[in-house]
């Protein structure tokens, strides 16, 4: 993701990035400086990754393993909850990503303008990002309890309907998405602010000389020139949304029934049930899916980088 985050930097930095593609010169340090890092990488990343490919082909009880070929993959792909989980995953990922882009951009626009207590407001917007996701989930689960929660008590007091935020099968996933947006909006806002602040003031001055309105400034200068920031927000929040698990598990556990189950929670429940081989196969599938999404996306991003 390092290449994505550098996207938010102003165009002037693009030249620095290009240096990476120069032919390598002889390093001042011997190659064996590299060994400790490689050893850690192999032991904690490469070996478990390849071991998981093997275990995904077995029935694994933790006490022994039986090789069963592709049986786990067949079982995983036939899981009646799988389609359901994929649909929810994509709905959730796209909705949270879109909301973070739109709301994050509007907040960033507001917080880069001349407003009172700007520093304080910026901190307040960012604060939820720093809180533990599980903690946020538990707090909202209590706040939004349909009968004893503070939110519904307030709604009831002014005569509004009191929905079952996490318990209504038609609402649960969207309520979680809302909580996720509340928690994640700070990062999106921060990236947009960095992008907006980096736009040279001369453009605005020149446009104002030509008599452009404020709306026109936003539409023809701010939005186009913060496109790299927007790409970063889209990618980060989409990837985050597609693999989101913790907030869903802390609020509904995928329920009621299976109405807020996503791929990660389907796999987690298989692990919890003691289906170690099967859930490992699920993770291998997830790995392939995420790779299939990420490779073209980072290719696209890097290509745009050069265009700048």
């Amino acid at each position, binding site marked *: 993701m390092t290449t994505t985050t550098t996207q938010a930097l102003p165009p002037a930095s693009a030249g620095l990035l290009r240096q990476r593609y120069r032919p390598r010169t002889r390093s001042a340090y011997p190659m064996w400086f590299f060994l400790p890092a490689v050893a850690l990488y192999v032991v904690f990343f490469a070996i478990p990754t390849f071991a998981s490919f093997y275990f995904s082909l077995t029935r694994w*009880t933790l*006490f022994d393993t039986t090789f069963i070929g592709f049986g786990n993959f067949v079982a995983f792909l036939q899981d009646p909850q799988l389609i359901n989980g994929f649909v929810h995953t994509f709905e959730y990922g796209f909705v949270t990503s879109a909301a973070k882009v739109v709301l994050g951009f509007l907040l960033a626009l507001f917080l880069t303008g001349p407003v009172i207590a700007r520093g304080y407001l910026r901190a307040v917007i960012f604060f939820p990002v720093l809180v533990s996701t599980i903690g946020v989930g538990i707090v909202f689960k209590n706040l939004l309890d349909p009968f004893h929660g503070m939110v519904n008590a307030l709604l009831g007091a002014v005569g509004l309907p009191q929905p079952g935020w996490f318990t209504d099968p038609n609402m649960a996933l969207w309520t979680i998405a809302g909580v996720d947006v509340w928690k994640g909006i700070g990062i999106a806002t921060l990236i947009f602010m960095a992008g907006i602040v980096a736009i040279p003031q001369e453009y605005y001055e020149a446009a104002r000389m030509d008599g452009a309105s404020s709306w026109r400034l936003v539409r023809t200068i701010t939005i186009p020139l913060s496109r790299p920031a927007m790409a970063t927000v889209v990618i980060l929040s989409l990837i985050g949304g597609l693999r989101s698990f913790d907030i869903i598990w802390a609020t509904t556990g995928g329920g009621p029934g299976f109405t807020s189950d996503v791929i990660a929670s389907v796999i987690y429940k298989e*692990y919890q049930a003691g289906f170690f081989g099967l859930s490992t196969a699920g993770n291998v599938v997830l790995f392939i899916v995420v790779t299939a999404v990420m490779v073209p996306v980072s290719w696209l991003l890097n290509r745009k980088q050069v265009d700048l």
Partner: protein
Amino acid sequence: MKLAPRITRSALAVGGVAVLIASLTGCSGGLGGGSASTGDKSVTSNSDLQHDTTITLLTGNDPASIAQGKAYADGFHKAEPKVTVKIDGSKPAGGDGDNYVKTKLSTGDMDDVFLYNSGSLFQALDPDKTLQPLGNEPWVEDVDANFKTTVSTSKGFYGAPVGTSFAGGVLYNKKVYAKLGLSVPTTWAQFLANSKKIKAAGITPVLQTYGDTWTAQLFVLGSFANISAADSSWAKQYTANDASAKYAKQPALEGFQHTQQVHDLGLLNKDYAALTNVNGLKELAEGKAAQYPMLGVVISNVQQSNPDQVNDIGIFPLPADNGADTRLTVWEPGAAYIPTSTTGDKLIAAKKFVAWMNSSAGCAVQNKVVAPSGPYSISTCKLPSTVNTVVSDTQQYVQQGKAGVALEFLSAIKGPNLEKILIQVGSGISTAAQGAALYDEDVKKQAQQLGLSGWN
């Protein structure tokens, strides 16, 4: 090995302990006595300890389990001053706890003594490789024959009962029943008729508490004795993937249908989707609700929250459509086990500790710290002279032969998604038939993972 799953584990975490009903006659018997005892005599507890020894006891990580563990450790230290028992209260509840125990056993890192379920969850531990056989211990002859089968494999006997058995059925408020002039129903139709009268009186007829998802399973798991009564070979055929023993077919479909009916007829509390077990029990004790399909073991929570109302609550079996099949479903107690990684002085000390738990001093501690919820499964432990009404009701059904064991003690298969599927059925998201068909698929996945024959 999910069989015994969540319903028991969660209930144990919530309520304390379970045990076995000594007079259950429905199953087993074959493993009694000598055939189950293949321990090595040379290392039994007859040896004496030469040195001071410290052993560890793994318990659940909830405060009640840790407090119980400490009571056992203190009591045993008084009886055997050379041995100190340290409590390792680190086992999480539910499926995570199963994985924790399996991981500790497979890495040889298990505590010297650990408390865990009997029945199918015990079978999933690969006991012949991971546990010390206890078949030659002197207390084994006092253990109930039915319980022995739940902690034995074909090669040996491995666990000492800890706690009492408990029933699953309908907890009901006897005062509400008396006030409305109702009698205990023995058929499902009578149950619905009672429920309508209760509703007319402005009291919640049937409590459901999906805020704790495991509680959704009672209509299905808590009525298993009814299925056994209708077809005594059902569990065997179910394990063998016989097409006649499926949840999508009667008699097993009844549990799903009943889950749907109480929702469709508007008999549930309005906050069923979010209410928790503990708060549901308070409503039952206070007479705001009349009937709650539940495990008897949770009565210990009422003892904490509403001590004056404990004896207002009784239990009756979940009624079958055909009243002749109505039986109370009973769960066996959990057990204490010693892993093979415990050897030498620690093994001698661990065996002494396990034997002490079922001695008269140990039984006194159990009676004090564990609210008994049914009979003990070892003849050396006796219930206190006064027991609450849930326990006395349970004993009554057992003594009349109107009880049978839960499925998890007869079959190794339980699908992991049962509670979620039943929440869908009980919330009107799907029908009983759809839910039962989905659960049959879930069961298939479990059976294949267990490598059972006849499922591929």
